[in-house]
């Protein structure tokens, strides 16, 4: 499997300019929505009505906007995790497993630790990142030491991570006297601080963390030696080695941090929104991180834009389903066509350049 080739192809997604990285996801999603409009039409539903419901459900009221932002947070974390790894030439498809493991460890710590103020939640977040990071470190280690491609190992580890979490909420972390696979409620002292409240919807501090990490990442990539080292590893491994960069070390550290960021998607959701761990509590957010990263031009700031759109899509799809009966799962069709349309557009563009 030629990874160098993959990374060089991905460069078409790589948008260093912020404006470009904002426009790409929008165009991709528009194409996706147009194709899906045909499926909706075949269902005997007017696509315009359906999409009006979708937009209303996503941002129509303040509460809906808040719910969209609550989906924006985990999508940003996983999108940033995939972006960071990619920038070092590693394809992290394991965000799903990393976030499940992160959520598991964070919940466990939040339930066991009894400390005042927000210390338990801080401790929970940190332990989640360490274990999530370690979960991502394994494929990185296998890649650099054994030459095993990370695409396959991270996918396989997702299933392992999801099953470990499922096992935990069915055994030692299961709420006493309950038959449902879920943990007990987390004490209030271990909840994440809430920064805004609107009726029943609480926006937690995770959103601040998202912006901090995104801007920090952006700054590190383009203004520091670290960022230069990370980017040069993905561009040319041989040249980086020659230039004195410890390629193995860079890849392992970056994957650890990538897993740590992915774990935050799970731990902030548990500590900030759901307050207990349930089996299958956030299916697909890790895989959506890949879509977010690709649509966001593999640029930390573009990721924020793409994550917002995908969050809106996820949230709006509920209203669309209630109003028109179009299943929520259709958003995956939209996302797939968004990616495939960008792939084909850029492939055609490359072909056009080659022929002229």
């Amino acid at each position, binding site marked *: 499997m030629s990874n160098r080739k993959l990374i060089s192809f991905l460069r078409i997604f790589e948008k260093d300019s912020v404006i470009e990285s904002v426009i790409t996801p929008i165009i991709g999603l528009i194409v996706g929505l147009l194709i899906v409009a045909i499926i909706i039409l075949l269902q005997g539903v007017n696509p315009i009505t359906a999409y009006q419901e979708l937009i209303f459900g996503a941002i129509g009221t303040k509460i809906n906007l808040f719910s969209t932002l609550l989906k924006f947070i985990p999508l940003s974390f996983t999108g940033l995790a995939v972006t960071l790894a990619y920038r070092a030439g590693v394809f992290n498809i394991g965000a799903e497993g990393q976030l499940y493991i992160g959520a598991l460890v964070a919940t466990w710590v939040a339930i066991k630790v009894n400390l005042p103020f927000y210390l338990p939640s801080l401790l929970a977040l940190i332990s989640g990142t360490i274990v999530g990071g370690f979960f991502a470190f394994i494929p990185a280690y296998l890649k650099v030491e054994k*030459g095993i491609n990370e695409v*396959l190992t991270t996918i*396989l580890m997702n*299933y*392992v991570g999801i099953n470990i979490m499922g096992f935990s909420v069915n055994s030692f972390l299961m709420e006493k006297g309950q038959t449902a696979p879920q943990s007990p409620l987390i004490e209030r002292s271990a909840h994440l601080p809430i920064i805004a409240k609107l009726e029943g919807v609480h926006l937690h501090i995770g959103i601040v963390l998202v912006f901090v990490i995104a801007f920090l990442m952006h700054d590190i990539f383009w203004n520091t030696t670290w960022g230069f080292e990370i980017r040069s590893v993905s561009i040319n491994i041989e040249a980086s080695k020659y230039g004195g960069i410890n390629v193995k070390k860079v890849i392992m550290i970056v994957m650890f941090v990538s897993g740590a960021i992915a774990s935050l998607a799970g731990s902030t959701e548990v500590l900030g929104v759901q307050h207990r761990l349930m089996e299958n509590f956030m299916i697909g957010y890790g895989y959506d991180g890949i879509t977010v990263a690709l649509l966001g031009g593999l640029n930390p700031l573009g990721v924020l834009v793409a994550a917002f759109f995908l969050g809106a899509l996820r949230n709006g799809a509920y209203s669309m389903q209630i109003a028109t009966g179009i299943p929520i*799962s259709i958003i995956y069709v939209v996302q797939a066509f968004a990616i*495939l349309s960008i792939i084909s557009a850029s492939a055609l563009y490359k072909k056009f350049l080659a022929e002229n």
Partner: protein
Amino acid sequence: MIDILLAILNISFLQAIVNMSTPLLLAAIGDIYSERAGVLNIGLEGMMLIGAFSSFVISYHFNNPYMALIVTIIIGFGLGIFHAFFTVTLKADQVITALGENILALGLTSTLYRIIIGVTEIQPECPGLPVLYIPVINRIPVVGDIMSGSNILVYIAFLMPIITYIIFEYTSFGLSIKAVGENPKAADSLGINVNVIRYIAVIISGIFAALGGASLTIGGLKYFFDNMTAGRGFIAFAAVIFGRYTPLGVFVGTLLFGVSDAFQLRLQTLGIQLPYHIFTSIPYIVTLLVMIFSRQTSFSPKALGKAYVRSS
């Protein structure tokens, strides 16, 4: 411990291995063609899912599992063309395309299931493929017993390694595929149409991946649920790497995963006090361990993953 030994030392355990290996074997053997021709197909997962879904729907709707089988082959053909169009014609990246395809398969099957079948209280069942009785095979001791409950897909799956071996070793078509995967430029100069061979190879992979999915529904459970392939496509892909792209190696690889799958099911039915999550992880962990302990890179076709650009 004796319980466990007794549970696995019998014919029904061997039958379970055959049943668990069939979907993987079909997808993995088909994938050999694609990989050998130089096209990665991580889209196996999505192709299997679509195959599982379409065979279920057709069999459910028309009450005819054989018709479902034929439609699935046609759909697999289409899936192959889809993947080949992106990877061979457009020369798009083979991994990204596959990721897009897998998301598409998940979205399409879940959506269409709700549209066509709707949300029901009881899981609707479709007619499954009937047991196929082949006089010669079924009279062989042990083998006959193991195969006695099998449908046509199981026979196809276990014949494919032999057929594939013959194709790759003794036919010019097999030789062309290998040439295209190892050195497309040289193949081209010998008058082999690289893109046509790659299209055919990817189409074969698409058909068998779809059949692998069909063996889960019309050849297995007789019902469909969201994301029911649960990573089997990825495991099949791993089996191809483990099997070093050879029919025999891939056969051994899929059997190994079949054994671990059958073993975990058997332990569950024994009522051993361990939650099922531990058991369901076994095949994935075995796959990971197998990848760690088997060397792989040096065996892959030289042009694997690279689109062929004809230079003048």
